[in-house]
C-alpha cells in the first residue's frame, strides 16, 4: 500500500488515525451530552433522537463510533505500553498490527450485533 510506504509508515498512520478518531469521538460526546440533557428537560425530543439512533443510518453511525472508540482505545494502550516500557518501541509496528487483529476480531461481531435489528434479524 502506498500509504504504508510514505515517510512515517505505520507510526505516522497510527498517529493520524488516533487524532481523527479522537476528534470524531469528541464530536459524538457533544451530541450525546446534548441528547441526554434533553431526556431530563424534553423527553419527547429525546425519544425522537433515539428513533434516529435505532434507524439504519443511526446504526451505521454507531458502528463508526464503535470503530473509532475501539481503534482509539487499542492504540492508546499501545502508546502507553511504549511510554512505560520504552524497549517495546522496537516492536511498535508489530503491536500496531496486533491491534488491527483485535480490532477485526472484536469489531466484526460487534458491528453485526448493532446492524442485525435493522436487517430484521
Amino acid at each position, binding site marked *: 500500500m502506498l500509504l504504508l510506504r510514505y515517510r512515517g509508515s505505520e507510526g505516522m498512520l497510527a*498517529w493520524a488515525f488516533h487524532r481523527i478518531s479522537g476528534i470524531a469521538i469528541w464530536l459524538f460526546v457533544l451530541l450525546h451530552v446534548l441528547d441526554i440533557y434533553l431526556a431530563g428537560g424534553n*423527553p419527547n425530543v429525546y425519544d425522537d433522537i433515539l428513533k434516529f*439512533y*435505532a434507524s439504519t443510518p443511526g446504526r451505521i453511525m454507531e458502528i463508526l*463510533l464503535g470503530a473509532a472508540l475501539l481503534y482509539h482505545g487499542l492504540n492508546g*494502550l499501545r502508546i502507553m505500553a*511504549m*511510554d512505560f516500557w520504552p524497549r517495546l*518501541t522496537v516492536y511498535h509496528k508489530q503491536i500496531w498490527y496486533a491491534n488491527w487483529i483485535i480490532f477485526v476480531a472484536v469489531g466484526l461481531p460487534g458491528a453485526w450485533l448493532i446492524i442485525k435489528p435493522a436487517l430484521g434479524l
Partner: protein
Amino acid sequence: MALYSRSGRPKPQSGGFELASWYFMRVSGVALFVLAFAHFSLEHFLFDPSEESATWIFNQRWNSLFWRSFDWLLLMMVVLHAFLGMRTVTMDYLKGGRRTLALATLYLVGVVVFAMGTIVVMSVPLTMPG
C-alpha cells in the same frame, strides 16, 4: 534518554501542568478503556436503541445509584480526556490570537458540557426499585 513513542506525544521534560496532563491522559485513558466500553456495550449489546427511551432511562437505566455514579465518572473522565486532547490538537495547528480564542471557546464548551451532564444525571428523580 528521553522517552519517546512512535505515535503518542513525547513525555514533556518541563514538568508542571504539561507533565501532569501527560500523565492524566494516560490514567484517564486506562479508566476510559473500561468505562466507555462498558457503557457502549450496555447500550448496544445488552440493550438495543429500539427499546430505549426517556422513560426507560428514568425507570430502569438510571434507577440505580451505581449506574448513575458510573455514568457520571465516565462523563468526568471523558470531558477531561477529550478537552485535554483537543487542546493538544488546537495548539498543534493554531498560534497567537486564534489559539487563545479557540482554547477559550474549547474550555467554555467543556465546562458547559460537564455542567449539562451533571445536571441531568443528578436531577432526574430516583424511584427506588420495588
